[in-house]
């Protein structure tokens, strides 16, 4: 391979990456440090980077402070998975239709989908609340799942559509000439070839679902047992004090399962983003 950069340029690139990474990762690092500190340590001045009494005590105490913590973590993952699954069920046929079929108002509706993405959920909270109340979905898992799905479908369609468009049209024409129906072609030809794309899109949807659930949870749900982790973390805020160290510990533990999954999916993500490799 050719060295495209001079030493100085390489140095510059690494310096930029370092600054960027520090900016991104420092909060996580501080979260971790805070979770190790005893509570009184947190407000001590001057700031101490390290001291002898650091421990993992918060990681065991947090389960007592917030007894439902395990349930919250489960809810978070469960809601995110349910949202992802439901979203994909809607997105796959829709994205295929946008990629391959001709129908009236096709580009117009795509633009509307993009437009919907520009609203944050917050703007629509009150109308959504009324809708969910009318449907009797408040204070159920559905109250957090349904809006989640609705907000993620447009993103999913846009992402998957561009992936499906890269699958050579001739493959589908060949299947059509051989007598295969649209559904058969979708199932036997298109989807197997789109697996990397499907993984990328479901990952993006999952991240979205995980990130947005806080807003829906605090607005549409009063049931403690159904709260996801971000809402559950509120319980670390007591009447007297806030157990910051335990809250940080709980947040880290809650994100852990998701991070592990993404570690395994990483190679698909990279493969998916550099895709188009299906054509020989």
């Amino acid at each position: 391979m050719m060295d495209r950069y001079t030493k100085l340029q390489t140095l510059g690139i690494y310096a930029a990456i370092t600054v960027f990474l520090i900016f991104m990762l420092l909060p996580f690092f501080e979260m971790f440090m805070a979770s190790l500190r005893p509570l009184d340590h947190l407000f001590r001045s001057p700031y101490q980077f390290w001291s002898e009494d650091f421990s993992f005590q918060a990681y065991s105490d947090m389960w007592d402070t917030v007894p439902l913590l395990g349930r919250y973590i489960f809810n978070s993952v469960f809601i995110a998975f349910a949202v992802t699954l439901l979203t994909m069920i809607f997105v796959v046929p829709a994205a295929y239709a946008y990629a391959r079929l001709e129908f009236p108002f096709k580009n117009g509706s795509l633009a509307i989908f993009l437009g919907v993405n520009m609203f944050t959920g917050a703007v629509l909270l009150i109308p959504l609340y009324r809708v969910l109340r009318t449907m009797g979905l408040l204070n159920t898992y559905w109250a957090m799942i349904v809006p989640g799905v609705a907000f993620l479908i447009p993103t999913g369609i846009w992402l998957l559509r561009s992936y499906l468009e890269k699958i050579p049209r001739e493959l589908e024409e060949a299947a059509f000439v051989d007598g295969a129906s649209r559904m058969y072609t979708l199932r036997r030809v298109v989807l197997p070839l789109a697996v990397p794309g499907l993984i990328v899109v479901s990952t993006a949807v999952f991240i979205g679902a995980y990130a947005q659930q806080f807003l829906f949870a605090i607005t549409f749900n009063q049931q403690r047992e159904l709260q996801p982790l971000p809402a559950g973390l509120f319980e670390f805020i007591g009447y007297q004090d806030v157990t910051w160290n335990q809250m940080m510990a709980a947040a880290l533990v809650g994100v852990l399962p998701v991070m592990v999954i993404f570690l395994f999916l990483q190679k698909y993500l990279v493969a998916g983003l550099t895709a188009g490799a299906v054509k020989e």
Partner: protein
Amino acid sequence: MATLNLNAITKSFGAAQVLHDISLAIEDKEFVVFVGPSGCGKSTLLRIIAGLEEATSGAIVIDGQDVSDEHPVDRGISMVFQSYALYPHLSVYENIAFPLRVQKLGKADLDRRVQRAAEILQLTDKLHLKPGQLSGGQRQRVAIGRSIVREPKVFLFDEPLSNLDAALRGDMRVELSQLHGSLDATMVYVTHDQVEAMTMADRIVVLNGGRVEQFGTPMELYHHPANKFVAAFIGQPNMNFVPATVLGADQAGLTVELSGGHRMTLPVEPGSARAGDKVEVGIRPEHVTVAPEGMEISVRVLERLGGVSITYGETADGTRFCASLPGDAPIREGEPLTLSVAPRDCHVFQANGDVLRRQSAPEMTA
């Protein structure tokens, strides 16, 4: 039995009409090649026959039955695509079996037919591989295997050899001709390569700008091109066109003066040609010889291929002229050369491009 008739097919994409009133009658077991430059509509015509595109008007008739509105499978056609269109995630076996799986054919029957297709195409030991592990020629065979396994009435090929290198293309040409012989099927083949057309076709359809210029056997096209376009398209190197003026017409033919001043009497039916008309004389490079007198050209580029020397030059008035001369012909670049051609080998084209029929045609061996 499978005859294929196209009745007055037209096709428009929006305001652009790409096919104009195309009618063809293709006979049973015939190998017909559609040839023409890019954008002439040959692939569109093939896709209309396949049922991938709908004709704007006209009818596709297979075996006397109008199939214009039917699904490709019900038409009894199968198609081989330019890019092979193999399913990269399926093995060679499953690729070939795909049309039969769609039909929900029984396991034993399916296996028997896949194995037979694999045998014909020498793929038996490749059945477990994925298309990505095959060479270009082998992929092409798999694509053909997938098309023959259904035993259709009409095979359609869309530039199937254009992705192969030159040597392999030659081999596959021979294989396809043999396959046509052994399958006894009607085949329609699209290409832009006139060598493929000439070597494989029973009859050739020359298309240009969405119109059929000529439909005939390769030798008909070579010896009796209907117009200047066909004459220029068929033959390698291309035919030369020398501007000429008609001096007179009689029983013996047309007397013309070539742009360089050389006079000839050409044995063609004069038709409506009158003295003073501007015409073009078509001379194939392989029909000229070095002679003491005749047309003068100055040699610009010389390609010595061993057996022949392709000579590119210009006449005095700048008309380009190519001659295919013996390999050892005493020619040098930059020097003048005198060439002669037998009048019976010349073609005459009127100003509108139409040919004047030659009186003495060579033997027609189709």
